[in-house]
C-alpha cells in the first residue's frame, strides 16, 4: 500500500503520457458533473410543471 510515485510532479507527468491519462480522468469528472446538473435541472422542471398545473387549476 505504499505510494508508487517519488514526487507529485512525477504523478502529474504520468511518465510523459499525462495528456492521455488526464483526458480520460478529466472526462470522467466532467461526465459526473454534467449528469448531476442535468438530474437537478430535470427535477426542477418536473416540480415547476406540477406547480404550473396547480396554478392553472386554482385560476379556473
Amino acid at each position, binding site marked *: 500500500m505504499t505510494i508508487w*510515485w517519488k514526487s507529485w510532479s512525477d504523478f502529474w507527468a504520468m*511518465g*510523459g*503520457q499525462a495528456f492521455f491519462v488526464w483526458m480520460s480522468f478529466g472526462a*470522467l469528472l466532467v461526465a*459526473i458533473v454534467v449528469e448531476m446538473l442535468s438530474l437537478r435541472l430535470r*427535477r426542477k422542471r*418536473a416540480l415547476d410543471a*406540477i406547480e404550473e398545473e*396547480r396554478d392553472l387549476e386554482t385560476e379556473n
Partner: protein
Amino acid sequence: MNWFYFSSPSTFYGLAGRLAPWFFVAAALLAAWGLYLGLLVAPTDAQQGEVYRVIFIHVPTAWMSMFLYFVMACYCGLSLVFNTRLSAMMARAIAPTGALMTFLALWTGAFWGRPTWGTYWVWDARLTSELVLLFLYFGYMALANAFEDPRRGDRAAALLALIGVVNLPIIYFSVQWWNTLHQGSSVSFKGTSMHVTMLTGMLVMSASAWMYAIGATLVRVRSVILERERRTAWVRSLGAA
C-alpha cells in the same frame, strides 16, 4: 411482506428518494479507494507505461454500459408483458446513465488507443459494436419521447431496446469472433494475470460505477414519476405541503 407495494410509482418515489443518497455515498467512498489504488499505489505497467491507468475508468464504464443496457431491456420486457408503469419508467431512467457510461468507455478507449495502437479510432468489431450500443441508447431515448402519449413511447422504445439486446453478445464476444486490435479479457486468473493492486483497483472502481449508476437512476426515476404522474392526486399533494 407485500412485494408489489413498491411497484407502485407513488410508494417507489419515496423509497427511491430515501435510498439514492446512500448509493452516492457508497459510490464516492469506493471511488476514493479505487482512485487511490489505481492512481497512487498501482505500479507502472511494464509494457504500456502509465497510460494503462485509463483501465480504471475504461473497464468499469464498459462493463456498466452493457450491464445497464441489459437491465434496461429487462425492465422493457417487464413493461411490455405485464404493462407495469414503474418498469417503463425505470427503463427511461436508466437510459441516459447507460449512454453516459458507453460514451466514457468509448472516449477513454480512444485516449488509451492513441499511445498504444497509434490511433484514436478504428472500425473494428469491438469498437464499432460499442458505438452501436451508444446509438441504441440514443435511439431508445428518442423513440421513447417521440410520441404524444408516453405509454406508446414506452412500448415502441421497449421493442427497440429488446431487439438491440442482440448487440450485447456481439460486443462481449467480438474480441474472440473477429480479428481485432482490442485485446481479449484481462480478468482471468491463469497465466500472466493482472497485478493484484491493478485488479483490486479495477474491481473497486467497477463497484463504484455500479453504486453511482443505481443512485443516478433512482434520482432520475423520481423526476420521470413526477413528469408522468403530475395530474394525480398524490403528486398534487406533494408540493402543497
